[in-house]
């Protein structure tokens, strides 16, 4: 394959040709930049797989391409968003907000039109208009979809449908509907929300049941992106600090748009007490949770591994298999099972504790109870992995060391602290660090077991057991949140923390890569 055999040519062509066609479709759809980037990727692909000089990259290309698209791009995108104001209040790009404002109209008492709807198919119609005063002025639209949309705001987001003048004597294709058919709610409701635009840029929309009338756009777009109100002459301009259109007095108009906001989101994390307070507490809990999880599951794992390495114990194979179970069962299922077992009123754990010790901890409503529960469950989930890797390390320790120490009159406990631990911890350190990093971002456990609860008093959407990653998720996706900008800023900080950990890890483990 090195010298470009016919087979490799065919394979490259089989991938490249559909990709080129797709690129053409992208270009036609008006996504110029993306089409260009895609084209470069295709060219790179052809070059890598046909040029002998790029041979090495034939092995790397698919993996690195996937990595770039699904890891690097989301990362950069998130960092980019973290520097913008982007939330449920400032959702749309500026251009969309302008076109929404430009759809606002007021009645000018201009021309009125009689109208007919020509049915094309089940959902497609053509609108036909005839000026009441000047019957020669006739217009028709292109076929458009007319269906009841579920969300009411979805209608206003549609762009006005253009109307073309109709040459004399010509009729639109299809059958015109009778009036009773038109006024049925199924057609009438979506029709009422539609706007159409005449060739002279005047908007027309339905007025009453019988007529269409011209309506003028309320706002004129000036070249400097300001808008002038035609009724009272107010000028509004986009305020790039708040992401809203404002008049001279600072009054807001319309919906907000996304704006570049520099370090504002980051400053909010540091200075805004409503965010800073929960952030610091959650950060401390995240670090504590990760450290305790690693330490305790490592402790339990090593202990079991050491016992299982002791040749005198019988049935070690059965024990080992049973002890690996928590690692073998899909974690989602185990976590949800524990959610049931730790149920405060009816769960098995509390029933048992009540029966034995007359004591029922509040796993759900008390922050400390919830934290203890999370740690217990996490140790249960995490120790088999630690056990497996320490078993591997233990087996590589020569038996002679223990024999020598036995001659010196040692005991198992001393052996454990003075021989075993010092020998296995350094090589396992990278795994312990990456396990720390894993728990630092252990979204699933918290989300499925406590969902962050109980709520932090005065912490807004923050919960007492939320990890940073869950907190970020809440800011971005929970109903009361939807602040993508802020969430991305927290995510970026999180990445810096965990990335640094990974880097340290790499330094410690990788003398040679």
């Amino acid at each position, binding site marked *: 394959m090195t010298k470009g055999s016919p087979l490799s040519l065919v394979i490259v062509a089989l991938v490249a040709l559909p990709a080129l066609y797709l690129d053409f479709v992208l270009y036609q759809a008006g996504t110029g930049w993306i089409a260009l980037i895609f084209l470069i990727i295709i060219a790179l692909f052809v070059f890598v797989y046909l040029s002998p000089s790029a041979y090495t990259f034939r092995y790397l290309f698919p993996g690195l391409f*996937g990595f770039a698209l699904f890891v690097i791009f989301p990362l950069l995108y998130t960092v980019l968003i973290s520097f913008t104001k982007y939330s449920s209040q400032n959702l749309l790009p500026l251009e969309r907000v302008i076109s929404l404002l430009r759809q606002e109209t007021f009645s000018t008492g201009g021309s009125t039109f009689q109208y007919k709807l020509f049915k094309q198919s089940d959902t497609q119609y053509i609108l036909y208009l005839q000026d009441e005063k000047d019957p020669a002025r006739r217009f028709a639209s292109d076929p458009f979809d007319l269906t009841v949309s579920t969300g009411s705001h979805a209608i206003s987001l549609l762009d006005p449908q253009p109307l073309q003048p109709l040459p004399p004597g010509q009729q639109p294709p299809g059958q015109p509907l009778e009036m009773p058919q038109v006024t049925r709610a199924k057609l009438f409701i979506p029709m009422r929300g539609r706007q159409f635009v005449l060739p002279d840029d005047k908007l027309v929309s339905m007025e009453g049941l019988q007529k269409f009338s011209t309506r003028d756009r309320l706002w004129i777009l000036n070249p400097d992106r300001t808008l002038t109100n035609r009724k009272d002459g107010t000028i509004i301009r986009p305020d790039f600090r708040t992401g809203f259109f404002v008049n001279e007095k600072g009054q807001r108009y319309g919906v907000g748009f996304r704006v570049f906001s520099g370090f504002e989101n980051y400053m909010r994390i540091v200075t805004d007490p409503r965010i800073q307070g929960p952030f610091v507490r959650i950060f401390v809990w995240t670090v504590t949770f990760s450290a305790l999880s690693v330490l305790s599951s490592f402790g339990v794992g090593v202990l*079991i591994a050491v016992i299982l390495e002791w040749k005198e114990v019988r049935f070690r194979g059965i*024990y080992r298999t049973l002890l690996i*179970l928590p690692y073998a069962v899909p974690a989602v*299922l185990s976590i949800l099972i524990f959610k049931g077992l730790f149920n405060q009123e009816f769960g098995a754990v509390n029933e048992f504790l009540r029966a034995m010790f007359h004591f029922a901890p509040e796993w759900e409503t008390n922050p400390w109870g919830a934290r203890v529960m999370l740690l217990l469950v996490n140790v249960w989930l995490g120790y088999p992995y630690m056990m497996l890797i320490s078993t*591997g390390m233990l087996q590589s320790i020569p038996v002679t060391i223990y024999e020598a120490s036995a001659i010196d009159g040692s005991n198992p406990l001393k052996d454990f602290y003075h021989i075993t631990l010092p020998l296995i911890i350094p090589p396992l350190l990278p*795994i312990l660090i990456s396990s720390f990093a894993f728990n630092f971002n252990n979204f699933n456990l918290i989300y499925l077991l406590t969902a962050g609860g109980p709520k932090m008093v005065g912490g807004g959407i923050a919960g007492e057991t939320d990890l940073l990653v869950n907190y970020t998720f809440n800011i*971005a996706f929970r109903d009361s949140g939807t602040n993508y900008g802020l969430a991305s800023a927290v995510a970026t900080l999180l990445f810096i923390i965990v990335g640094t950990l*990974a880097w340290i890890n790499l330094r410690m483990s990788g003398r040679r890569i």
Partner: protein
Amino acid sequence: MTTVQTPRKEESQTGTVRKRLTPTQKIAIRKVLAHAFLIGFIILVLVPFIMVISASFRKGNFAPSELIPDKISLEHWKFVLGIPYQEVVNPATGETRIVKAATPPLLWFWNSIKVSFIASAGIIFLSGSAAYGFARLYFKFRSATLGTLLILQMFPMVLALVAFYVILDFTGQYIPWLGLNTQPGLIMIYLGGISSYIWMIKGYFETIPPSMEESARIDGATQFQTFIRILLPISAPIFAVVFILAFIGYMSEYPVASVVLQSSDNWTLAVGANSFLYEQEKLWGRFSALAVLSGVPITVIFLLCQRFIVGGLVSGGVKE
């Protein structure tokens, strides 16, 4: 136990415990302690599973809390398997209704298997070929690229959800079967998580001396042929490990799947299982039946491949 306790009593009187015991007695005590500890731990491990099995056969939707169900019923199993069954709506009048799952929960398990299987196969292909490049070929910035891969992968998938949403929304406009709410779209996103697997496979490749491939090259094999014919067959164990680890990881993945897949016939096991546990109404019985049904095969596969996995974890993770 009696043999263990007698020497102890003597000690508590004299205060010099250890020296009085003969070595055989010491070992006997330790053995008993070891067994007791292990059995105690195994009980902690097994009880939750036994309770779930019991809850799946218990009438009504109760949280798992009994080792043996008091009233046995197969209703949850029927529901999960998509078999209709009769349920008494009003005990006073004896009125009944037929219950049948709109989307048989078994479908979620099947979806999960499909998605995880294809994604893991893709991972094998992508990370295997990349690992070969990193292990056997030399190019500029090789170690820098490897390090970067590992560090960038630390960015949690959950936080990239906004970007994933944007990507799938975009692809869906042009390739409908690859957009939001499609399993291929989800699989595509899963294929990004390759770097730790690249590291594992590369670590394994490096333990194989290149001399065999070199002699094959001398005999006229191309580089590609030495990779496919020589290195790959020897490395089958590490590929098995990567496949199983990736597979189990994807079976358990919740957040991305829950955002990407919206309609219930597309759901994966994790999304579907969690959907039984709403805040208002927790259907523990149905959840338990689904958990047992889907958990058992995966667990068995894992245990059968245990030896491979342990070997792979140690060689891929700890190798210096």
